[in-house]
């Protein structure tokens, strides 16, 4: 007789993100913050620049959160968090974790200078970029995190984005920060474990979390987690960590690397792509994957 399979809940039941918030249906950014806070606990301060999460927690005087939020300027997630951390140190609070929580626009584009500055100084903060691959809060405009071939409101179907996604992880690795990792909302236990690990490290820690956006990707809300799993399985968004910019470890190993076709098909933003364009994208994914594997085995 086979034993009945049982699921075990490995994440703490405590919630720091309240229900009834303003996230869209199937919002990956919402899940990302839920999981990260489960790992960090209540002694956390979030610095949130302009991004979807600037709205999700609710309008003044409400907040769905049970941790404090400092809503800061678009390009200042890293510098604001740096200031908060310094201020806390000076008033004798060494315990609280200060987190910069920004979208891809606030990280890859407008906030990159402040992030680079903070990383170079090795400020004692955790910087999290939840990446939904475009300026979603302003209505789906392309960012430098938007993948090649994608439609956005500023990369119309006739002229989809013809530059590859910026390799933010390589940029951060070049800063030799003590810890950085990619993660996906489809792998909450992996994310949870890595945030726990990062919490105990001093210095700048960087997370790059793939966060599906059904609204901006023209996909079904119920596919949000599925897409976040497929993007890992097809190696478009591999899950790995880097210590001190050198030691690469693959966290989610692939039994079989899937082609990207099925992933693209589920999203309206790729619907216009012709087979030959998909082939070019597939080659790009393959090249990036090989490059990563070399770094991991080095």
């Amino acid at each position, binding site marked *: 007789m086979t034993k009945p399979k049982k699921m075990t809940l490995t994440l703490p039941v405590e919630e720091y993100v309240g229900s009834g918030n303003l996230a869209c249906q199937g919002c990956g950014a919402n899940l990302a913050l839920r999981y990260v806070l489960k790992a960090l606990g209540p*002694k956390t301060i979030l610095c949130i620049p302009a991004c979807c999460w600037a709205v999700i927690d609710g309008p003044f005087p409400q907040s769905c*959160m049970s941790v*404090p939020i400092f809503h*800061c300027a678009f390009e*200042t997630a890293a*510098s604001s968090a740096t*200031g908060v951390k*310094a*201020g806390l140190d*000076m008033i004798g609070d060494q315990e609280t974790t200060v987190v910069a929580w920004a979208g891809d626009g606030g990280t890859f584009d407008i906030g990159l200078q402040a992030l680079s500055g903070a990383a170079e100084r090795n400020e004692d903060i955790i910087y999290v970029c939840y990446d939904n691959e475009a300026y979603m809060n302003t209505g789906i405009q392309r960012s430098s995190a938007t993948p090649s071939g994608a439609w956005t409101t500023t990369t119309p179907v006739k002229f989809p984005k013809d530059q590859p996604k910026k390799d933010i992880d390589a940029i951060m690795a070049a800063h030799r920060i003590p810890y950085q990792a990619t993660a996906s909302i489809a792998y909450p236990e992996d994310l949870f474990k890595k945030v726990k690990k990062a919490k105990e490290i001093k210095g700048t820690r960087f997370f790059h979390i793939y966060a599906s956006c059904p609204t901006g990707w023209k996909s079904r809300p119920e596919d949000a987690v599925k897409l976040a799993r497929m993007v890992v399985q097809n190696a478009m968004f591999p899950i790995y960590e880097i210590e001190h910019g050198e030691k690469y470890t693959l966290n989610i190993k692939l039994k079989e690397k899937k082609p990207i076709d099925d992933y693209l098909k589920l999203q309206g933003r790729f619907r216009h792509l012709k087979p030959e364009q998909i082939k070019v994208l597939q080659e790009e994914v393959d090249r990036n994957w090989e490059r990563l594997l070399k770094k991991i085995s080095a």
Partner: protein
Amino acid sequence: MKKVIMGNHALSYGAMLARTQVVAAYPITPQTQVVELLSEMCADGTLKAKFIKVESEHSAMAACIGASLAGARTFTATSSQGLALMHEMLHWASGGRLPVVMGNINRSMAPGWSIWTDQNDSLSERDTGWMQYYCASNQEVLDTTIQAFKVSEALSIPSMVILDAFALSHTYEVVDVPDQAIVDQYLPPFKPVARVTPDEPHAFGGLTGPEHYYELRYKLQKDMEKAPALIEETGRQYEKLFGRYLGLVEDYRCDDAEIILVTSGTAGSTARVAVDQMRKDGLAVGNFRMKVFRPFPFEHCRRILPKAKKIAVVDRNISYGHHGMFAQEVKSALYQHTDDVPVFCAIAGLGGRDITPDTFREVVDYAREHDKPEDDILWIGVKK
């Protein structure tokens, strides 16, 4: 203790005596000595503070704002282009009601590149909700820095302590550096009204709809309106402890003056000398140096300036398409409060061109020869 120090170091000593806890700064000529000395003080423990060596002025102000919100006393210094880069964050500091204190060295805006003084950098930030003090001596720089923290923290409004490039920033003067113990008496530790802490989780600065935003700005203005009286009160308290009064304006020989010069910054101390010279020549001239520009000293303007037959404002700045900015504001303050006192609007010393006693003599001569200003702007020393 008396020391011979440059204006920039007067700012550093002021920030040190105020027991600043976090400094975040980026270098720009002619501000560099302010933060160089502070970084030494932080390194050798003279000042127990965190010095964040940020990668831009924008990040400097962002970090100051974060630190202030965390509950620390916070200071930075900049100049010109750096201040312009901070512009967005200046609104964030005042809108967030955070009492950051900043030194700004008045330096002309590029292009062309100029490191010399005029006031267009700080006056371009007139409407950001910061208090602005224009200093005329290194002593005043040091004293005002300490006072600025006291006023800012009482009102939850940030302050800018402003001094002229080179004329003050790099000029050495004798400065009485007060005892720390007495400064501590004057300025107790910072007790924030609210701070970001997990012990009491709130969201600061979130989405604010039309039903709330308006009142937040109303409150900022209402508190700014309390500032003139508070500056005078804290100025008197300062005088009791240190023997130097710190007020909104300095009126010099204005009581019986037929022509009152309105000045600010180091041009104001040059004007004092010019007034004495002209008095010797039998001319009834006074000098009304505006030390505080925000909040605007309406009461002093309306009480003192109409005593004269003519008022001549000398601006080291210009609002293109209008006048010098002090002139605009003096005229607007006097409107409906005086009858027919003509206000002459002079501009001098842009881009660090020297302002000398002769500058004021020329302005006064023009005012004596004319019942009313013929030109909108009286340009002093310009090569037309």
